[in-house]
């Protein structure tokens, strides 16, 4: 029991003390405007090392290098498009999370809409065909009587 108490005390002490050991936050950047644009651009770019992370969020070494490169390009006065083109010319369209609209990506962008239209067409044609199959069947007086007898018979 005493050991448990001691352990708990140590744990509490560690929890209280640990912030002292934490590293101080790094200054964001010398120029907040550049940093803002860097984040804006790099959120739309894929980190090629960890492919499901954006360039903004990745801690991979290549991502850090590429952020440095993008930062330099911003400082040199390049537009967002120029910076994206810089990376695409080296790493291919794959770096863009939002693929460009061009003949090779038409299917990618248009595919879902094409599927939707095809689906609607199939649905409409099916419904039309089905409505033709249902023939109006008028109930004759005789039928009505038979139905009534049957219904009553069931009740009794």
């Amino acid at each position: 029991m005493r050991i448990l108490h001691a352990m708990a005390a140590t744990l509490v002490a560690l929890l209280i003390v640990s912030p002292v050991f934490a590293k101080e936050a790094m200054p964001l950047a010398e120029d907040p405007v550049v940093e803002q644009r860097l984040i804006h651009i790099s959120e739309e770019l894929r980190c090629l090392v960890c492919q499901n992370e954006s360039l903004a969020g990745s801690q991979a070494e290549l991502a850090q290098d590429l952020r440095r490169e993008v930062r330099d390009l911003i400082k040199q006065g390049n537009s967002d498009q120029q910076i994206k083109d810089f990376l695409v010319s080296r790493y291919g369209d794959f770096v863009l999370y939002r693929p460009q609209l061009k003949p090779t990506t038409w299917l990618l962008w248009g595919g879902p809409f094409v599927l939707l239209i095809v689906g609607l067409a199939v649905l409409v044609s099916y419904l039309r065909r089905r409505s033709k199959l249902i023939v109006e069947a008028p109930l004759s007086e005789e039928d009505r009587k038979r139905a009534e007898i049957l219904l009553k018979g069931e009740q009794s």
Partner: protein
Amino acid sequence: MNRFLLPLGIFIVLVGFLAVGLRLNPREVPSPLVGKPAPDFSVPQLHDETAMFSPKEMAGKVWLLNVWASWCVSCREEHPILNEFAKSGTAPLVGLNYKDKREDGIRWLARFGDPYLLSAVDSDGRVGINYGVYGVPETYVIDKAGVIRFKQIGPVTPAVLQQKIIPLVQELNK
């Protein structure tokens, strides 16, 4: 019977797509640089800090540029294959020591063998970025006119060497 054929057909097509998708390697991103001139650079050499290397010096030759580093585990895997390749004398092999410490690089080559004509030093990774390097090792085949003809991402395997790189070098040397 007929009404099951269409769903079955769609299902088979879908399975086909998924099967192909599973076999693709997401690490292998087709490089836009294949078919384009190799980006120029001028960086110091590994063994001789004062001497520079630029791809222009290789103009008129079919050559290989291999990106390596002492910290790269798969480089060790491909290194014996590169050593063999260098011995065969098929094409000159230039190393690009990527984001490495000079002394580590030199020590690594002394330990595992040096297949390179020379190694250029890309200490901050800038040359690597221009070549679209994202996973060391990477190997480029560059033709006489300085155009990149092939890029291998990841270690060069004997199969890649025999089936792709060597035939391509021979073709380009004709």
